[in-house]
């Protein structure tokens, strides 16, 4: 649905060059919620703004719904008619809502319809319908300043949906909201994704956002995508930074002659009593340093950090046993050894 190929963005200011995007290949499939996560300055904001060409990429192509937007852009700095029409089919919501304070809630939602040249009757019908969808039907005549942050973002979402877009871009839409409101806005995005088949590309710096709504995720660092994939693939990837961040485990080894092992359960393996089997089979004492079960991207996932007596070299056999049971095993500090073993 959204594909970027070798996308590069270089900002030039006073002779200095800053590379915000460095060859980004992004592929968002139709109907999924895709999260791009990274710290500020990683280039994620540039990336999402390049998708509807609010920002002109220095090189590379962007295509949305099969249409090559970079080809529509033309040479001048201003957006031509074709590009503007394409943009009207891409919804966008912003961190600071960007609602017009001079217009009522309903008039804000009608704005994109005015741009599309719809008649007054069509506009108000559609606007009220959308406000109803986001649960703000009773606030149609209010002004944005009279609303709470969460309500404002709902208006922003209703407005973004006015042009019946297939794609919704969300630029840190929940970053200015408190945790509870964030959850309700994310739930709304999830519902819209399911009900309308809307493809959502969101950028965020909060891991919780990815955890609660995303089907797929990408991690950005220094203008590059360093990891990407569906959430379940990422969790199944040994040494995945994103997986570890999605599901952080704490706990240090209690001594030098001990081995810390991270066990990830997904799906069926989560129901087996593997830890007690391990203890009985090898007659070893296992301490649990940390554990959690959570739902990530709609999947039931468990993670546990356990400590085995003895060094890593002494524990190759029990670790092999766990792996045989279909669990994903990470040994912090021994990633390279693991990857080699995994390749066998």
């Amino acid at each position, binding site marked *: 649905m959204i594909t970027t190929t070798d996308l590069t963005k270089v900002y030039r200011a006073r002779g200095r060059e800053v590379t915000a995007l460095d060859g980004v290949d992004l592929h968002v499939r139709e109907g999924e919620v895709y999260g791009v996560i990274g710290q500020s300055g990683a280039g994620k904001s540039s990336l999402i703004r390049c998708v*509807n060409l*609010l920002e002109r990429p220095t090189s590379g192509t962007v295509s949305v719904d099969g249409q090559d937007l970079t080809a529509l852009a033309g040479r001048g*700095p*201003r*957006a031509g008619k074709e590009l*503007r*029409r*394409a*943009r*009207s089919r*891409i919804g*966008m919501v*912003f961190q*600071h809502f*960007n*609602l*017009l*304070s*001079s*217009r009522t809630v309903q008039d804000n939602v009608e*704005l*994109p319809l*005015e*741009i*599309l040249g719809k008649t007054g009757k069509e506009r108000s019908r559609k606007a009220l319908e959308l406000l109803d969808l986001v*649960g703000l039907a009773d606030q149609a005549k209010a*002004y*944005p*300043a*009279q609303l*709470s*942050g*969460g*309500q404002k973002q*709902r208006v922003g979402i209703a*407005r973004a949906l006015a*042009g019946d877009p297939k794609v919704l*871009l969300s630029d840190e839409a929940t970053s200015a909201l*408190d945790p509870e*409101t964030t959850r*309700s*806005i994310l739930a709304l995005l999830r519902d819209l994704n399911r009900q309308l088949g809307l493809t959502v590309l969101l950028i965020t710096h909060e891991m919780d956002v990815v955890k609660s709504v995303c089907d797929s995720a990408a991690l950005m660092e220094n203008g590059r995508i360093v990891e990407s994939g569906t959430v379940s693939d990422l969790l199944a990837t040994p040494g995945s930074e994103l997986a570890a961040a999605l599901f952080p485990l704490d706990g240090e080894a209690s001594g030098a002659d001990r081995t810390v092992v991270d066990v990830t359960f997904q799906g069926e393996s989560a129901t087996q009593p593997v830890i007690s089997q391990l203890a009985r089979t090898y007659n070893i004492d296992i301490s649990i340093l940390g554990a959690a079960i959570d739902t990530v991207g709609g999947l039931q996932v468990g993670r546990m950090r356990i400590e085995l007596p003895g060094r890593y070299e002494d524990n190759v056999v029990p670790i092999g046993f766990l792996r045989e049971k279909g669990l994903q095993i990470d040994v912090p500090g021994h990633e390279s050894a693991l990857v080699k073993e995994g390749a066998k």
Partner: protein
Amino acid sequence: MTWSEMQPLLEQACWDTLYMVGWSTLIAVVGGLPLGILLVLTDRGGLLQNLAANKVIGQIVNIARSLPFIILMVALMSFTRWITGTTIGREAAIVPLAVGAIPFFARLVETAVREVDHGLVEAVQAMGGNTWTIVRKVLVPESLPSLISSTTTTVVALIGYSAMAGTVGAGGLGDIAIRYGYQRFETGLMWITVAILAVVISLIQFAGDYAARSLHRRGAHSGPAPRLRLLKAAS
């Protein structure tokens, strides 16, 4: 001088002032609004970035603003004659008043429009709006309270300028104050014109402030106890 002598003089003067200030304000708004918006749009990072045009417009505005009004009036005489056919009278005074007020208002418009949050511009761009749409639906409506305040400031400045229009026989309150009050030592009449000017300017300022505030209020601080509302945060 008795009141019955003063009354027709003052009445005529009020109308003259109103006439000159009214028309020149109208022209200043019609001319200065697009000019001010253009100053923002053509600036670096603007939607119609054109630094050469921006420099030229900026310079013209600065030069026109730096001329004292009385000199502007004299300098524009041939232009005034070309437009109105005369350099004397109310109509003739409107030309330099408007020419002086256009750049004044344009700078105020520029400041007001620059205050509009760039995020709003971006939001409308993302909806597929073009530059004209952005000007009509975002820049002007969002800066309207400031634009109204700017207009008030311009009207008050024009009333001040119009006192000098007496030198070209345009009449007006300022002219009465100088000719009768100062030159003929009619102190009573002078104080009356001063009082009228003070009242008129206060009224205009009050009306302008009220309009700007009521427009602003619907945006920013409306409704009872907004803090409580935030706490409830129904969403």
